[in-house]
């Protein structure tokens, strides 16, 4: 639902707020990719996300999600969805995913200057971006 994109708030509230999503491209590199998803999850859990949710087990960390059980249930189309409140943790996760050449797509949502700064530090060339043009209409 791209909620991470359309969140509203002052820039200060976004300062240390990063949403990280990783997934394969269906029909291109998803077949047999569950080991890559598992490795991505292991790296993320080692760095310590603020929260992480699972569509497969219907849980998140605030509900007591068990990382090992979740990792064991990973399927080829399980997206990885988590958030961090520390820039350095995002840097660490991206650095490890790059060094290990895991190869799944990764998006990071946050203040654009911060995210681009992280990419520069890790040595990544940002590919594309999704930009919110606001919430409109009546309701």
């Amino acid at each position, binding site marked *: *639902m*791209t909620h991470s994109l359309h969140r509203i708030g002052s820039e200060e509230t976004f300062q240390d707020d990063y949403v990280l999503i990783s997934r394969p491209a269906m029909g291109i*590199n998803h077949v047999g990719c569950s080991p890559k998803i598992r490795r991505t999850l292991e790296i993320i859990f080692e760095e310590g996300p603020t929260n992480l949710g699972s569509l497969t087990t219907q849980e998140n960390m605030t509900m007591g999600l068990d990382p090992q059980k979740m990792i064991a249930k990973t399927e080829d189309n399980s997206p990885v969805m988590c958030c961090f409140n520390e820039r350095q943790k995002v840097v660490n996760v991206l650095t490890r995913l790059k060094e290990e050449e895991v190869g*799944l*797509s990764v998006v990071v949502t946050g203040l654009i200057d911060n995210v*681009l700064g992280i990419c520069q530090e890790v040595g*990544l060339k*940002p590919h594309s*971006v999704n930009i919110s043009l606001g919430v409109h*209409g009546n309701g």
Partner: protein
Amino acid sequence: MKINQELCVGCGQCLPYCPMGAIERRKDTSQINWDECVECGICIRQVKCPVNAIYEPKETMEWPRSVRKVFSDPTSKHENTGVRGRGTEEVKSNDVTARFKRGFFGIALEFGRPGVGTRLGDVEVITKVLAEEGIAFEAANPLTFLMEDVRTGIIKADVRNEKVLSGIVEFVIPQENLEQVCTKIYESAGKANCIFSWALISRFEPDGKLSVIERLKKIGIKPSRNMKVNVGLGRPLRED
């Protein structure tokens, strides 16, 4: 979704879980408003009902009601896209799919949201205007499958009144059409019966710049600085 009236003890525990406020308290039991329920499944998954009274009747999966679950339940998988949830992969895997190429912009309009939802027919306020502009709607998007005719943007009569949590209209435009298309959407926004969020997908230019931001500002649209960046880790990497 339904509540078995024979079993329900009216404890009310399930009421706060429904994002649509569709669970109503009656004298001794609770009932689900069938017309307002979007089949998101939160009640059946999350509520610890003491008597297991919440159930999914077979009508939930019968056409046209079945579209509610596809558009509202993030755990349901759309048959045509293989993606869990309502949309497509948008920018998330664009480094591998290259669906959004340099020289083009992707646009996504998401109608409804938790708490308000949308009737599927309500998206026509914008889809008809876009069709007049010659927009080609994203073929792999669940909402495109529900159009009577993609050249008119009209939604099939039998699903128009189906209520869903949200539905996303997606398409790609050549970059030279940015101002014209965005102005049309902006002008039509006030006529929409429900709220919609608007997102634009762009490639970074070879020098890392995003000139689309200045172009949008010139036509009075101020993009949020909170953005979703595909950092280019997907392999095999496709530039275009």
